[in-house]
Every structure is written in C-alpha cells, then in structure tokens.
C-alpha cells in the first residue's frame, strides 16, 4: 500500500491504495465518486473515461501509481465547466440517454473533443467517440447533441 496525493476536480485528495489499483477503483471505491462507470475493464468501451491533465483517459487501465501530480477531472465536475455544462444541456435537450450507463464516458469524450475542436465534423465525432460503446445505440443522438453543444458554445 502507498499513499497518494491526488488532485481530483480541483480538490486535494489523499488516498492510500495498492500502487496497482486502477484510477477507476480509487475514484469509485475510495473517493465514492461513482459517476465514472466500470464497463469492460480493458479500455475497450470508454465508460470509465475521465480527464487526466486534460486528456480523455481510460481510468480502468491506469494504475494510481502512474497518475502522479496530474489533475484528474471527472463527470462530477462537468456542470462547473462551460463546455461540460453545454454538453450536458445538449444531452438533455436532445434526450440522448437511454439506459445511461455509458453516458458519463461519452460526455467526457465529447467535452475533450469540443475543447480541441470547437466545430467538429461528423467524421471528427465518429473518430473521437469511436471507442465509446453504447449498447442502446444512442450514437445518432450523441452526434446531434455534440453539434448542438458546439452551436451553443460558438
């Protein structure tokens, strides 16, 4: 076990965990931040996506020992982020969610995309969210909502 000083959503958090513990489980089990979801555990579905130093990161395969000083931002902080807020509003407006399980990961990737590419094309959206799987098949509404958020932010 080791103790880590993390920056999560702008707050310092001290966590004691085995160095091999994935960031996902530190967030969910130690910090009780359950907005980030466990999907596949092998970075193949995107449900566990958070931002680490601004990069959309699959938290299920990043051990806590490799996070270091880099700030972690999760779905719980998106309502305080202008882009995150616009995306969440668009998600509601377009009624994107069906079961909702994958949606926090979808939103985290959509925010990363819009911060880098404010006016994404269909191709940009398909490529950037190509690793986020939705069993309900909400892809069309996700694309509409990203474009809506982009308009709102323009």
């Amino acid at each position: 076990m080791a103790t880590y000083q993390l920056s999560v959503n702008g707050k310092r958090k001290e966590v004691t965990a085995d160095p091999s513990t994935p960031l996902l489980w530190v967030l969910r089990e130690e910090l009780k931040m359950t907005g980030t979801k466990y999907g596949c555990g092998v970075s193949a579905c995107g449900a566990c996506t958070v931002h680490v130093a601004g990069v959309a990161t699959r938290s299920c395969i990043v051990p806590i020992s490799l996070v270091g000083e880099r700030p972690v931002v999760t779905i719980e902080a998106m309502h305080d982020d202008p882009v995150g807020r616009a995306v969440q509003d668009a998600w509601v407006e377009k009624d994107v969610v069906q079961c909702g399980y994958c949606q926090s990961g979808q939103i985290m990737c959509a925010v990363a995309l819009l911060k880098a590419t404010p006016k994404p094309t269909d191709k940009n959206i398909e490529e950037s969210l190509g690793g986020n799987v939705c069993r309900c098949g909400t892809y069309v509404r996700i694309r509409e909502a990203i474009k809506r958020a982009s308009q709102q932010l323009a």
Partner: protein
Amino acid sequence: MMHNRRNMLRTFVFLLAISTAWIVLLRVADQAKSAASNNTQAGGLAAWEEVYSVLTSPRCINCHTATNYPQQGDDRHRHVANVIRGPEDKGVPGLNCASCHQESNADSTGAPGGHNWHLAPLSMQWQDLNDRPLLSAVVCRSVTDRSKNHNLDGPGLLKHHEEEALVLWAWNPGRRPDGTMRTLPPLSHSEFVAATRRWVEAGTPCPK
C-alpha cells in the same frame, strides 16, 4: 663504347624490373582493396538483414503501419477500440494514444506505456496497406532516406536505435492483460545495436 652499351642495357633492365614490380604491387593492392570492399558490403548487407528482422517484429512494426490505425499483439491485429492515427500520429481528442498508454508500462492492467507513445509517421511505414511487411530492400531504402527519416544519417540512425525511448521499449514491453510477458524482438538490444553499427560502418548498404 661496349662498356657504355652494357651499362645502358643494365639500367634499362633495372628500370623495367622496377616498373613491373610497381605495376604488380598496385594490382595486388587494388585487388585487396576491392576484396575488402566486397567483404564490407557483404558484411553490411548481412548486418542489415539482422536489423530488418527486428524492425519487422511485432514490437516494432505494429506502430509502423501504412494505415490510419496501429496494430497490437503478436498476430498484429488491428488495435481495439477503433483507435486511429490522427493528424499528429497520436490519436484524436477523446481517443489519444495517451488515453491509455502512460509514461511506463502498467503491468497490473496490461497496458504498455512509454514516453511520448505514438505511431511512426506514414513516411516510416514498413507495411503495405494490407498489413504485410514490406520487403527488406524497400524498408532499407525508406530507413536511409533522409527526406523520410527525420534527416538521420548513419550515426543518427545508430543513436536512434541505441537511445530512443520507444525503441528501447521493445525490449521492455511489459505484461499482457492476462499477466504473461509480451514477446521480445528476435535479437537482444545489444545485438541489435551491434548489427546497426556494422551496417552503418559499411555505409548503410541496402539490398537490390
């Protein structure tokens, strides 16, 4: 009179002998030089084939694709999760290489990692569009083409093979998600560097 003629003849014979000996010596030296050059060329080409065997191993060639995606595994299958190359060979926002690949291997989860994880540029593709490794001569010409290889000369290529973090990663590739070790290239890193050095010292010859 007779004496003078004899002296002249003697001098002529002497000069002829010296000239003949000189010509023979020059020819022998030339042949030796040519043989040495052939040996160097042959040695250099043999060394290149050793280098090529490493470059086309999965640990190296999986990120030297001709396509818009990397590969993974010893069977060199397309990378999972629809990962694509992106404009800077580092994926795209939301799905960057760094979304999973950290500064070092994550053996507990099976994600390989290293500094500045990225695909090799398309100019350094070592496969065709059907994911088949290119021929040795083609890869050699590509590797030695300074308009394609970040302007590296022979010593620059040697240094790249000796020190580049992602080259070194091939010999420390970490564990797969199932906990087993990833396979290594066919040569050790020191053997790879020694082969590169022999190839560079031979003038980086390429097969025809």
